[in-house]
């Protein structure tokens, strides 16, 4: 009705309408309170989430390995041998196996996907099982009859299986798995046992007590032990020529284990705790005998790569041994005990190395299992004793399980997850004795050429590089920035000051990639060529600037009067230029007089320091360049905000401007200076592009100013694009980022708190 006739609204209606409008506005206001509070809090939380996220990505590094028992597979399901019983009965058997022992497995293995595992039975059959324990198929060795199996072995990689018979023969086989795909999905594996030859190794036809067999590029090596101390070697060349050797231990020591190492070497362990090492090429040679234990050695195994041998003895002690050249002039390598592990307490029955990294699992005779890592010496995971004696153990190829074969023929399965076995606090921050190194060292080396390369994740060289670069940068930047700021705030004429400050502020915004580019491509080559002038400049530039005061007194009075106090800088800049010219001019003369004409050669011979083109001097200058404006701005601010009445009082009492600056301004502003230096430190620590471009990025531990370094930040930039998501390298780099985050956050917070207190103090004065 009101709409129909444009009559003036009644007061009641207008009040009502207004009330409605006000209500809406108030609603809006409340809504805004909610929205802005929520939004603001959300953003602040989101920004702080950065820290939480980086932490959560780095933390899994330190999580222990996890695992659980997956039950025991019973081999009762193996059907009896399909050979006619007559053959078994008539076979001449010096050590006749009882019928109950007939199916007892000697060696086992599994495929990459853990679909199958196979076992070599003591009657020579190879039986394949599905992982759930159901029997799949069997393959009977045709070459075995009429003898019996006395021993067997399996190589760490590629499933080379050797059978030693009771009449001195050796049967070589390989178990192969061929994956079958359908629709790009793995459906099944084809299993196969291929015969690799039969060798009559012991002329005396004694039983083979212990055997080892491996092939590399088609060259076979098989080692058998017959009797107590006879080691029989069989090997073929590239062209298939056969070689046989017979070796013996000293004093008839009883050999307990033999193993084949990398590049045609073999080791034999004895019951008196000795480790024998032979080279097979170019000629057979006993290279070393070393006492590794006071107890009989019960298990010895090479970890992946065939360089380090893990030795386990009858008391449950475990240690790792590899051979290095201890001194540079040594001709021979010597065994060193690089690592010792937490003892297991019972006889070490077997050791199972990983095929992925330097982890291994040690099995005690009581069925206890410990997953360990060779280099980090960590005990990653322990499974308590099952009371069932274990005689063989293996880590599955994907490091996701352990199979432990018990003496009664059953196989205990364990599921494990050990994503970062090589990382521990000690590996990251302590000295670690890596394979092939003569002593424990700090090493960062994340990628290598071969499959069995061990990644070395010591953060120490990177932290060192960061500190080194930062230190040289600050050494360069602090004096220049703080003295410059002192001059600007205390002595400079305000009219120039208004121009100088914005210039320096823009310098702060200079992209670091530009500074890095100039440092790497322009400065580095010039500094290398003109190193002596550059070093001279460090002295001559300030000297010439300071000597300006002598010139000042001799200037004609008319000219001097035109320049008001605080205009010295107009004279200083050309003088400093002159200092630079003089340095370049007398540089070659100095070099000839003091350093024999070539500074780099002199540094090499006199100080034994190699001069790199992209070195710390260049980084120091370049990074100093990036840090100066920050320190300058903050220092200048804290000098300038010293209350005017303090300086005025000092000057009025007759102090000179320098005395006022030193005795009044500097002490009052000193906390501000400290915070300026701290913030400069924070910037230098995290600087990435300059270091990346102006150093050689080599992770070395060397304080020399003439070589490079690798910093945490540059390391992240270089390596993270190639780091697989979720891998150890990836997480270690997150840890490095976390370290940078914490370092700068901590330093900046302190600086900020100091600045706030300083502000409060000035307010109080």
């Amino acid at each position: 009705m009101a709409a129909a006739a444009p009559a003036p609204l009644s007061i009641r209606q207008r009040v009502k309408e207004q009330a409605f409008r006000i209500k809406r506005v108030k609603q809006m206001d409340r809504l805004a309170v909610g929205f802005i509070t929520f939004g603001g809090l959300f953003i602040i939380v989101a920004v702080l989430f950065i820290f939480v996220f980086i932490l959560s990505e780095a933390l899994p590094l330190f999580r222990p390995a996890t695992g659980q028992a997956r039950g025991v597979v019973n081999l009762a399901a193996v059907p009896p041998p399909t050979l006619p019983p007559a053959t078994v009965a008539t076979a001449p058997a010096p050590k006749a196996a009882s019928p109950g022992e007939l199916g007892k497995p000697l060696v086992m293995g599994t495929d990459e996907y853990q679909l199958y595992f196979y076992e070599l039975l003591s009657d020579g059959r190879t039986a394949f099982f599905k992982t759930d324990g159901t029997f799949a198929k069997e393959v009977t060795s045709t070459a075995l009859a009429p003898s019996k199996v006395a021993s067997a072995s399996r190589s760490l990689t590629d499933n080379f299986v050797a059978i030693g018979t009771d009449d001195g023969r050796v049967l070589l086989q390989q178990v192969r798995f061929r994956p079958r795909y359908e629709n790009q999905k793995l459906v099944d594996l084809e299993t196969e046992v291929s015969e690799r030859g039969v060798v009559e190794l012991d002329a005396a036809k004694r039983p083979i007590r212990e055997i080892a067999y491996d092939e590399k590029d088609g060259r076979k090596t098989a080692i058998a032990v017959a009797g107590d101390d006879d080691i029989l070697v069989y090997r073929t060349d590239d062209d298939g020529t056969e070689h046989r050797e017979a070796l013996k231990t000293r004093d008839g020591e009883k050999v307990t284990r033999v193993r084949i190492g990398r590049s045609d070497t073999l080791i034999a362990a004895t019951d008196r705790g000795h480790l024998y090492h032979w080279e097979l090429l170019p000629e057979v040679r006993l290279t070393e005998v070393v006492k590794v234990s006071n107890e009989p050695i019960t298990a010895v195994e090479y970890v992946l790569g065939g360089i380090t041998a893990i030795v386990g003895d009858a008391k449950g002690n475990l240690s790792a041994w590899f051979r290095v050249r201890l001194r540079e002039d040594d001709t021979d390598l010597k065994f060193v005990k690089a690592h010792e592990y937490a003892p297991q307490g019972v006889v070490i029955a077997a050791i199972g190395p990983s095929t992925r990294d330097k982890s291994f699992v040690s099995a005690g005779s009581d069925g206890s299992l410990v997953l360990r890592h060779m280099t980090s010496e960590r005990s990653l995971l322990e499974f308590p004793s099952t009371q069932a004696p274990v005689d063989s153990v293996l880590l599955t190829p994907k490091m996701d399980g352990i199979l432990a074969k018990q003496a009664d023929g059953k196989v205990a399965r364990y599921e494990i997850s050990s994503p970062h076995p090589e990382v521990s606090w000690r590996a990251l921050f302590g000295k670690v004795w890596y394979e092939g190194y003569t002593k424990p060292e700090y090493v960062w080396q994340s990628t290598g050429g071969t499959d069995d390369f061990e990644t070395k994740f010591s953060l120490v060289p990177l932290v060192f590089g960061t500190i080194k670069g930062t230190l040289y940068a600050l050494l360069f930047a602090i004096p220049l920035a703080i003295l410059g700021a002192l001059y600007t705030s205390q002595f400079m004429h305000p009219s120039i000051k208004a121009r100088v400050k914005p210039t320096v502020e823009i310098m702060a915004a200079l992209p670091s990639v530009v500074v890095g580019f100039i440092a790497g491509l322009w400065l580095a080559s010039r500094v290398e060529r003109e190193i002596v002038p550059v070093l001279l400049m460090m002295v001559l530039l300030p000297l010439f600037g300071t000597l300006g005061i002598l010139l000042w007194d001799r200037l004609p009075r008319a000219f001097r009067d035109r320049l008001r106090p605080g205009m010295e800088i107009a004279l200083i800049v050309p003088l400093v230029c002159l200092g630079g010219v003089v340095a370049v001019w007398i540089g070659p003369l100095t070099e000839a007089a003091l350093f024999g004409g070539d500074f780099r050669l002199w540094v090499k011979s006199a100080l034994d320091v190699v001069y790199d083109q992209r070195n710390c001097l260049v980084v120091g200058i370049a990074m100093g360049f990036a840090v100066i404006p920050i320190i300058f701005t903050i220092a200048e601010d804290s000098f300038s905000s010293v209350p005017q009445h303090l300086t005025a009082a000092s000057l009025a009492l007759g102090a000179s401007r320098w005395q006022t600056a030193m005795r009044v301004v500097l002490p009052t502003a000193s906390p501000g200076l400290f915070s300026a230096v701290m913030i400069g430190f924070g910037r230098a620590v995290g600087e990435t592009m300059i270091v990346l471009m102006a150093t050689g990025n080599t992770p070395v531990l060397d304080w020399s100013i003439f070589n490079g370094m690798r910093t945490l930040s540059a390391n992240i930039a270089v390596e993270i694009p190639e780091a697989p998501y979720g891998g150890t390298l990836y997480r270690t780099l997150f840890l490095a980022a976390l370290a940078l985050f914490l370092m700068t956050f901590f330093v900046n917070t302190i600086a900020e708190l100091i600045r706030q207190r300083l502000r409060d103090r000035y307010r109080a004065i």
Partner: protein
Amino acid sequence: MNALVKSWRRGDPMVWFTGSALGICILMIVGLVLVILTNGLSFFWPKALTQLTLKDGSVLMGELASSEPIPNPGHPDHLQKQRLLVRVGNRDVYGFDFKWVPEGDIAKQERPRDAYFVERREYGPLLGTPVRVKQGDKILAEGAAAVELALPGLIARAAEDRSAIERIEKHEIGDINYEIERLRLESRALDLAASRGQDVAEKRADVERATAAQKALFQTKTDELAQLTERVAGTWVAFVTADGQEKELRSLDIYRSYAANQLTLLGRLSVYGGRLWAFFIEGPRESNTEGGIFPAIFGTVMMVIIMSIIVVPLGVLAALYLREYAKQGLLVRIVRIAVNNLAGVPSIVFGVFGLGFFVYTVGGTIDALFFPEALPTPTFGTGGILWAALTLALLTVPVVIVSSEEALAAVPRSMREASLAMGATKFQTILRVVLPAAAPGILTGLILAMARGAGEVAPLMLTGVVKLAPELPVDGFFPFFHFDRKFMHLGFHIYDVGFQSPNVEAAKPMVYTTTIFLLLIVVLLNLTAIVVRNRLREKYKTGAF
């Protein structure tokens, strides 16, 4: 003497000493700018071509790039005589671009009139004297003078032909390829739908029909391109190098040529301008060591714009909360310090966060939910312009928060009180009074953030920058803005060409020029911020409130 001692006591030399420190700082800045400017600006200047006849009879021709004392301790002239760096070009003939020539070996130095500097598609410049123009077997022009007359026309036509070829290659065939790829993904999506039990027969037929049509179209276009290429590729220009080798060049591959020793000052200026303009608008060639930097400029600007769109609302919202709504207490003080310090956290840390969170976590999730048909090729699960912009937004949000807060705090209390007294609500006051008054301050923060964002490289290296992006992040295909694409960036371009390029020496001058562009952007943004800030201060100093 007495005066000197007195002045020593008063500490005057120390004043000069501190002044020297400032002097060194100023000289360093000036020096850096001078190095960049002289190296960068001289790059496009057409230098004269000098022909050197050496004492052993060999002849070489090129631009004299620089000279230095012979730094060879074994050489008899060690540091006594100069050696010249000559840019001889003709990398396809010699295998190198630059050559050092000891001054003592030079028998004769001259500037041949007919020497030409030819910019071409690959192998860097060709330096030589033109001989003839040939079409098929037919000789169109013979001798330097005749060829010189013909060259400008040839080059102009080559440019037209190139753009015609590019139109077909990039746009028409590119469109078809894009469509075919889209259809392939659609068909993959149908596979996935079929595996879930949906009936897709009808749609599949549609897709297959469309694919066949596009493939037919592709064939015709390829044929058309082949014909065009054959038609325009038949013209050859032969040059002879200083040492007498003849080199034939397809006229299609010539981008620019000039007789370096005949140019007048005006001619040089026009070559200089032309090169500078081409550098600005063209894409890179020959693994970024030739051609221009347009995609890098475009990528930088685009990334900064996306970043600004993200960072302003975030920063202002947080500042509003901290300054206007939060209860001022210990907690807010702590948050303020934390936000302040975040600005000091190294940029690489933000890069690591961007890679882990945006690219792998968020991007990986988006891919699994919305682009399953493209997997395992990641769409958002790899670095891209959106992730880079988000990372930089996080990096710069403290800058915006801090300066917005300062701007909000600078709005006089009297203004707020007046507004509130008139009955406005708090929100109305903020919206209509406080924010407009604080706008210049917020703008300053944004500009500073943009300057920082434009200059950062380290975090981008982890979140989506590439040395050569085949496509710009904006094009004519729906949805026009492709936030998943990788992009080029001026700062990364400097790093990549200067340090990862196979031919650093030849590319170096170009990097200096790129540096000038980057510096120009950053310094201009900063200067604007400073000017705006000063205006703002003036305004509130003299304000009538």
